[in-house]
């Protein structure tokens, strides 16, 4: 049996969980095993309807009111106890903050190795898998040998696919035995942000500025360009380190991953740690004074020139 950890909002599964479920089903199909899911919260009962399409036969709804609030260790201990009961061949979690965190706790609690951010998994006695390193700029081929294999699915690398045959899904309550100490870490409160406007991760057009922009005020031109293209502004780490933009604007390995239709990279050299953040862009246009800059090999289109001249001229032309 393959067990997949599903996160959901009010009973409708998260995109990343459907990605993980797609990997989990590949494993189940390849090994002729059944596919089951584990989910938390009272509303998980509603998952029966949506997960059948993905081939899930049983949803184990962890039934303990205290778990309706996110508590990483208590969630992990619940999954670990379910693993003790069901002895799955593998547990697959989404490559999200929560997915990685919960599965790593399961690994620590049951002394099992865990493979994070998997891309491709060949199941046999020992799993042969590939996984992301360096935020996705390198691939590691590895062998995972364990009684229960713990895997997270790299984010945005699997497209959710429903099963060729939908399953008849039953939802079963699972009652873990948890003592108070399992709840020493739990969400105390959630503070809602009052931010409006398009977020960097979701924007259809992003105009990024790097060290070549030269100063904080000079982002005005980039803001204007982003404005006329219906997009938003991002930055390289070098620009953030200079204090020109907040870290929230950073694109890359330790910043935000973007997937716009168009990314305009201004005064950015094209370091691997920056480029993994914009792999998802359909088109990249680079504006750079240096025709030898690495970004010239990674972009689709380029203008060799000074962004301080090119961008204002573009803004004027778009204004007309």
């Amino acid at each position, binding site marked *: 049996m393959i067990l997949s950890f599903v996160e959901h909002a009010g009973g409708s599964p998260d995109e990343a969980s459907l990605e993980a479920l797609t990997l989990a089903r590949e494993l189940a199909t390849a090994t002729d095993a059944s596919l089951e899911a584990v989910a938390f919260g009272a509303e998980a009962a509603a998952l029966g309807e949506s997960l059948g399409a993905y081939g899930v036969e049983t949803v184990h709804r962890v039934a303990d009111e205290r778990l309706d609030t996110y508590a*990483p*260790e208590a969630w992990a201990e619940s999954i670990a106890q379910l693993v003790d009961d069901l002895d799955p061949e593998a547990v697959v979690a989404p490559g999200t*903050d929560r997915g*990685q965190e919960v599965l790593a706790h399961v*690994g*620590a609690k049951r002394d099992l*190795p*865990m493979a*994070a951010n998997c891309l491709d998994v060949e199941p046999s006695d020992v799993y*042969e898998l*590939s996984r992301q390193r*360096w*935020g996705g*700029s*390198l*691939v*590691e*081929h*590895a*062998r*995972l*040998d*364990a009684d229960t294999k713990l895997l*997270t699915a790299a984010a945005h690398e699997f497209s959710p696919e429903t099963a060729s045959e939908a399953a008849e899904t039953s939802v079963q309550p699972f009652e873990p035995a948890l003592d108070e100490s399992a709840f*020493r*870490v739990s969400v*105390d409160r*959630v503070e809602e*942000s009052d931010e409006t406007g398009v977020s960097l991760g979701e924007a259809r*057009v992003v105009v990024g500025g790097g060290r070549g922009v030269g100063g904080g005020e000079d982002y005005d031109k980039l803001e204007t360009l982003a404005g*006329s*293209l*219906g*997009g938003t502004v991002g930055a390289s780490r070098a620009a953030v380190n200079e204090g020109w933009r*907040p*870290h*929230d604007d*950073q694109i890359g390995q*330790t910043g935000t991953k973007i997937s716009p*239709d*168009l990314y305009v990279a201004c005064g950015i050299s094209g*370091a*691997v*740690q920056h480029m993994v953040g914009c792999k998802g862009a359909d088109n*990249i*246009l680079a504006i750079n004074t240096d025709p030898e800059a*690495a*970004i*010239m*090999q*990674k972009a689709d*289109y*380029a*203008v060799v*020139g*000074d962004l301080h001249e*090119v961008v204002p001229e*573009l803004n004027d*032309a*778009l204004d007309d």
Partner: protein
Amino acid sequence: MDTVACIKRVPDTGAKLTLTDDEQHIDTSHLGFTISPHEECAIEEAIQVADDHDGTATVLSLGPADADEQLRTGLAMTADEATLLETDGAEWRPRETAAALADALSGDADDPDFDLCLFGNESADVANHQVGIRVAEQLDIPFVAGVTDLTIADGKAVAERDVTGGTEVYELDLPAAVGVKEGMNEPRYASMRAKMQARKQSIERQDPVAGEFDGAIEKVKLEAPESTDGAAEVLGEGTDAVPAVIDLLRDDLEVV
């Protein structure tokens, strides 16, 4: 209040990742070394908390003898002490790494030797997303990943983590551990003088404890993903390119 930041020496790669012939490592013959930006923030926070609460900040790393370079960066930022769990340079797996770090972090009574231990959310190179969690579980202390803000008040650590549409707030009893994300603070630049001084400071070198584990994840080889690189289509030079860019935006990409 004593703090520890755990850091890992990694190659400072530039625009291209080249592998060694045996495909086991990044070719570092022309590269310098660094640590993850997440870990830079962990050091900064460790120093600030120790300063504000009358304690000592330590930087801790498991790695080759040369990892003292990264520990000295921490000392130059004004961490008080540095410990290196010295290896022969071979890559350590996450469970082994966590066991060795946990061993070094536990005091004589097997109680944690610190009040707050800071990890990067994930290491820059292997990004296993688990070493800090395994250390915390072994030491039986609370852990929160993805932390972007931390305050110490009334003997507790209040940690914040960004989620879609808001921020989750966690309250942790000390001692506690967290996984830090870049953006939590602005790591200080070490002055030239601090760098010189750090060179003279002593680093405690210890042999890491090697644990025994059932099952394993074993690296077979590395691969640089197929490069889709090819020269970009140059639309022109300077402002002369503007008409071509407008055509591209309007006709081909349809973003205006």
